[in-house]
C-alpha cells in the first residue's frame, strides 16, 4: 500500500483547519476596523483585502459545512489507511540519523480507530454547541489540526517523531482549552500547558539517554535494548525510564502531575473537554505503551523497582481520583476526576506487564474513551439547555429530557462495570492480568482497589440518575419547570452523536469478543 496514503487523512484535516484559522484571523482584523472609524491608511488596505461579503451570520453555515465535510473525509481516509495493512513512510530527516518516520502497526491501528470513532460525533455535536460559545472558526480550525496531529502521533514510527507530535498536540490543544477567553480559563490553560511541557521535557530527558544507548529508536515489538547495554548502564537507564513514565504519565493524569485535569475541564467548552479527557489523555497512555513495550521491552522492567513504583503510583491515583470525584459538586470536575482514576486503571494494567493485563488495558482504553466522551456530551447538553453545572441543581431533569438522561445512565453503567456492559469485561481482564503477574502483595492489592473504585464510581455517577428520574416532592417541580423553558430543547444535531456513542458503548459491551481477540493478537506479539 503506497506509503504517502498514510499521510492523506492528516493532510486533509490540516488543510481545512489551517484555512479556517486564517479565515478567523482575517475576521478579527476586519472586526476591529469598523470599530475605530479612524481613517488610518494601513488599515484601509487591510479592510480592502478581506472579501466584504462575509458578514457574521450567514458565514456560520459555510463554516459548519466545511468543518464537518473535512472531518468526515479525513475520518474515512484514516480508517481506510489503518485497516488496509501495514506500510511505512519516511517524511524527511530531522537530524543526521533521526527520520520523521511513520509506520502503521497493531497499536497504531487500534488508537486511530478509537480517535476517529470519537472525533466525528463530537465534531457534529460541537457544530451545534459552539453557537453560543462564539469564535467557531478558531475552534474548528484547531479542532481539525488536533485531529491531524493525533493521527500522526498514532502512526509515529520512532520515538522522536512521537515526541515531536506529542509536543505539537499540547500546543494545538492549548487554544481549545483556552477557548472561552475568561481569566480563569487562561490560567487553567497555562497550567495545562506547563504541566504537559514539564512532562514532555522529562520524557525528552529519557529519550536523550535511550538515543545514546540504542541506535535508531524505531518501535520494534518487544524492545530494542541489547543485553550488554543493559548490563553496563542498567541503573541510569532505569532512572531514565522512570522519568519518562512520570513525564508521559503527566499527560495520562498519573499521580504526581495530574493536577491540570480537574482544572482544565470545567473551564473548557464541553466538546473540547470531551475530546481532552477522551482522546488526548489516551495519547499519554500510547506514549507509555510505546516506551515500555516497544523500546525498552517489558522483561527489562519486570520485577524492578520501576515496576513497583509505577504500580503504586497508578493504584494511589485510582483510589484518589474516585475519592475526589465522590466529593465534587460540579459535574464536569467530577467527570474529570473519574477520568484520572479510570486512566490509572489502564496504567495499572500496563504496569502488570502480563499479556492479559495488557489486553485489559487496551479494552479499557476503548471503553473509557467512548464512555467518557458520551458523559461529557451529556454534561454539555445540560449546560447548554439549562446552564446548570452543579449536580443537585439537575433534580427532575429526567422528566424534561428523558432521552439524554437515559443515555447518561447507560454510559455510567458501562463505566461502573456492571456485568453485561463492556466496563466489566475490561475490569475482569485487568484483575486477571494483575493476578497472573504474581507480583506478591501487589497483585492482590490491585483487584481489591479495582472493586473499591468501582463502588465509588457508582457512588458519584448514580445520584444524578436517581435525582433526575425520581425528583421526590413537588416543591422542586416548578423550579425545574422554568429550567427547561429558559432554553430550547436540545436540537437533533446534539442528540444524534450522543445516541451513536451510547449505542457504540453498548455494542462493544455486549459483543466484545471481536475486540478481545484482536487485543490478544497485539499483546501476544509484544509479550
Amino acid at each position, binding site marked *: 500500500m503506497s506509503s504517502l496514503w498514510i499521510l492523506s487523512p492528516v493532510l486533509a484535516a490540516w488543510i481545512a483547519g489551517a484555512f479556517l484559522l486564517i479565515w478567523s*484571523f482575517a475576521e*478579527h*482584523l476586519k472586526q*476591529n476596523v469598523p*470599530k*475605530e472609524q*479612524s481613517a*488610518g491608511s*494601513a*488599515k484601509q488596505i*487591510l479592510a480592502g483585502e478581506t472579501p466584504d461579503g462575509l458578514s457574521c451570520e450567514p458565514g456560520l453555515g459555510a463554516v459548519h459545512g466545511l468543518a464537518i465535510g473535512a472531518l468526515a473525509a479525513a475520518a474515512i481516509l484514516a480508517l481506510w489507511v489503518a485497516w488496509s495493512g501495514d506500510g511505512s513512510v519516511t517524511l*524527511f*530527516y*530531522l*537530524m*543526521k540519523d533521526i527520520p520523521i518516520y511513520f509506520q502503521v502497526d497493531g497499536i497504531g491501528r487500534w488508537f486511530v480507530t478509537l480517535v476517529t470513532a470519537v472525533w466525528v460525533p463530537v465534531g457534529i455535536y460541537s457544530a451545534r454547541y459552539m453557537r453560543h460559545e462564539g469564535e467557531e472558526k478558531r475552534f474548528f480550525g484547531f479542532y481539525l489540526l488536533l485531529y491531524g496531529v493525533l493521527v500522526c502521533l498514532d502512526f509515529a514510527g520512532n520515538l*522522536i517523531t512521537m*515526541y*515531536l507530535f506529542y*509536543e*505539537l498536540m499540547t*500546543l494545538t490543544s492549548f*487554544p481549545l482549552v*483556552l477557548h*472561552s*477567553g*475568561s*481569566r480563569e480559563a*487562561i490560567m487553567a*490553560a*497555562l497550567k495545562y*500547558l*506547563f504541566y504537559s*511541557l*514539564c512532562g514532555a*521535557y*522529562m520524557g*525528552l*530527558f529519557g529519550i*536523550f*539517554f535511550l*538515543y*545514546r544507548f540504542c541506535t535508531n529508536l524505531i518501535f520494534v515489538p518487544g524492545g530494542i535494548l541489547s543485553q550488554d547495554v543493559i548490563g553496563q548502564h542498567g541503573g*541510569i537507564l532505569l532512572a531514565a525510564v522512570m522519568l519518562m513514565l512520570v513525564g508521559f504519565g503527566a499527560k495520562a493524569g498519573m499521580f504526581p502531575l495530574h493536577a491540570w485535569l480537574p482544572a482544565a475541564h470545567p473551564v473548557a467548552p464541553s466538546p473540547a473537554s470531551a475530546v481532552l479527557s477522551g482522546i488526548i489523555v489516551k495519547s499519554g497512555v500510547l506514549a507509555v505503551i510505546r516506551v515500555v513495550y516497544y523500546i525498552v521491552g517489558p522483561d527489562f522492567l519486570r520485577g524492578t523497582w520501576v515496576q513497583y513504583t509505577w504500580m503504586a503510583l497508578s493504584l494511589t491515583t485510582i483510589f484518589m481520583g474516585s475519592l475526589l470525584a465522590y466529593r465534587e459538586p460540579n459535574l464536569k470536575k467530577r467527570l474529570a476526576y473519574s477520568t484520572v482514576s479510570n486512566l490509572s486503571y489502564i496504567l495499572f494494567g500496563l504496569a502488570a506487564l502480563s499479556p492479559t493485563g495488557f489486553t485489559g488495558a487496551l479494552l479499557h482504553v476503548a471503553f473509557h474513551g467512548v464512555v467518557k466522551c458520551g458523559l461529557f456530551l451529556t454534561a454539555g447538553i445540560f449546560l447548554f439547555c439549562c446552564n446548570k453545572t452543579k449536580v443537585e441543581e439537575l433534580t427532575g431533569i429526567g422528566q424534561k429530557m428523558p432521552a439524554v438522561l437515559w443515555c447518561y445512565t447507560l454510559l455510567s453503567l458501562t463505566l461502573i462495570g456492571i456485568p453485561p456492559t463492556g466496563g466489566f469485561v475490561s475490569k475482569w481482564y485487568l484483575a486477571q492480568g494483575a493476578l497472573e503477574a504474581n507480583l506478591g502483595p501487589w497483585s492482590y492489592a490491585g483487584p481489591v482497589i479495582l472493586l473499591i473504585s468501582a463502588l465509588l464510581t457508582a457512588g458519584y455517577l448514580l445520584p444524578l440518575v436517581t435525582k433526575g428520574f425520581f425528583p421526590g416532592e413537588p416543591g422542586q417541580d416548578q423550579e425545574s419547570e422554568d429550567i427547561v423553558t429558559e432554553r430550547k430543547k436540545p436540537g437533533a444535531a446534539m442528540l444524534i452523536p450522543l445516541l451513536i456513542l451510547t449505542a457504540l458503548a453498548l455494542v462493544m459491551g455486549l459483543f466484545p469478543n471481536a475486540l478481545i481477540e484482536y487485543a490478544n493478537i497485539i499483546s501476544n506479539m509484544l509479550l
Partner: protein
Amino acid sequence: MHIAVMITVVLLPILGGILIPMLPFRGRREMLWYIEALVLINSILVLTVLLFQPEEAFVLFRFTGNLRVSFHLDGMGKVFAALAAALWPLAALYSFEYMKNDNNEKSFFMFYVITYGVTLGIAMADNILTMYFFFEMMSLVTLPLIMHTRTREAVLASRSYLYYMLGGAAFAFIGMIFILSYGTTSTFVPGGVLDLNKIGDKTNMMLLVYVLCFLGFGVKTAIWPFSGWLPRAGVAPTPVTALLHAVAVVNTGAFATMRITYYSFGTGLLRGTWAQSVVLLLVIFTILYGCSRALKETHIKRRLAWSTVSNLSYILFGVALMSPLGLAGALCHMLFHSFMKIGSFFCAGAVMHETGRSYVHELDGLGRKMPRVFAIFTICGMALMGVPGLAGFVSKWQLAQAAVASENPLAWVGVLALLASALLTAIYMLTISVRAFFPGKEFDYDTVPDVSDPGWMMLLPLVIFVAVIVLFGLHSQPFVEYLQGVALSMPT
C-alpha cells in the same frame, strides 16, 4: 590575493565607520545607503574569503619577538565570521528604521559599523594576542553604543558595563601571559599548545590560571558572578541590545572561551580535573539563575537579556564538556541562539518603537493589532523553548547528546538543568504571547493604541530570521555535519 581580502574584511568596516561622521552627506537617505552598501560589501567579501579559504596566516603588524597581530581562518573562525556576516546587514537595515527620529545617528552608526570589523577581527584571530587585542577593542567600541541615549541611567549602565569588561580582560590577561610563556607557540593549534615539561609540577597553578582565564573571557558571556551588566545594558536602543547581546559581544566571549579551552590549554589536560567540575558547576548555576531571574523580570528587554544569560551558559556548558561533541553542540547552539534571540529582540524593539510600551503587563491585546510581529515573537519563543521541528530543539539535542556521551555525572545534572531551564523559558516566553493574543473575554480593545505592524525595513529582517529558524529546525543535517567536521578535527 586571498590573504589581502582577509585583512580588508577586518579593516574596511573600521575605516568606513570612522569615515561616517567625516563624509558630507546631503540627506539622511544617502548616509543610509552608504552604510548599507558598506556592510553589504563587507559581508560579500567575508563570504568570498570563506569560500576559498586562504591557508597561510597574514601578519598585520608585529609587536615584539613572537608576539604579532595576525589573522588565519580555520573551522571555528569561519562559523563565527559567517554568523556575523549574515546578521549584520539585517541588523543595520532594522536599525535604520529604528533610529529614524534619533538625533545623533552619525556617531551611533559609526560605532555600529566599527563593531562589525572588530567582531570579524576576533573571528579570524590567529593567535591569542590578536584575539585579546580585539577583545579589548570590542568592549571599548561598544561603550558609546550603550551610552547612546545619554540619560543618567544609560551612563550608569555603561559605566558598570565597562568595569565588568575591563575587569574580565585583566584576568584574561593573566591566562594569556601564562599561555605565551608556557605554550610552545602563541598561535591557536587544535588540541592545545602547552608543553608539559615546562609546566611539570605546577599543574594546579595551570588549572587555577585556566579557571581565571575562563572567568575573564566568561565576563563577556555573563557567567553568574559577572552577569549584572547584561540586563542593565538593556537601557540601550534595541538594535544595540539585539545585535550586541544576541550576537556580537556575548558570542565573542563564548568564542574566546572556546578558543582558549580547545586551542590553547587543550582539553586533554583539563578533562576530569577539578577545574572542569568548577566550571561546570558555575555554568549550570548560571543556566538556572538566568532563567529564574527572567521569570521575575517584567520589563521585556531585561527579561530577554536574562534569557540570553542562561542561553549563553548552554554554550559554555557545551564548551565545558571538553569533548569534540561538546564543541559541536556549543557552536550549534551559538548559531541558532543568535538567530532566535535577535529575532525576539527585534520583535520587542518593534513593539517598543511603535507603542512605546516596554512592560509585559502593558502588552494585553496587542497581538490583535500587531499580529505579524507577535506571531514571529511566538515562533522565536517556541524555538527558544526547544519545540522539536525548530532550531532550538536541534541545538539542545546536540548539547544533550554530548553531555550524555561524556561520562562524568555532572554532565547529566547539566542535562537536567538544560531541560528545567527549557521549561522556565517556555513559561516566560509564552506568557508574553498568550497575554498578547488572548487577553481574555472582558478585555475591550479600544484601550489598545491603534498601531499597525512596522514598516518593511523592520519586518524584512524578522521574516528572514524566522525562515532561517524553521529551515534549520527542519533540515539541519548538512549544517550539523559541517559543525561536527570542525569539532572532530580536534585530537581529544
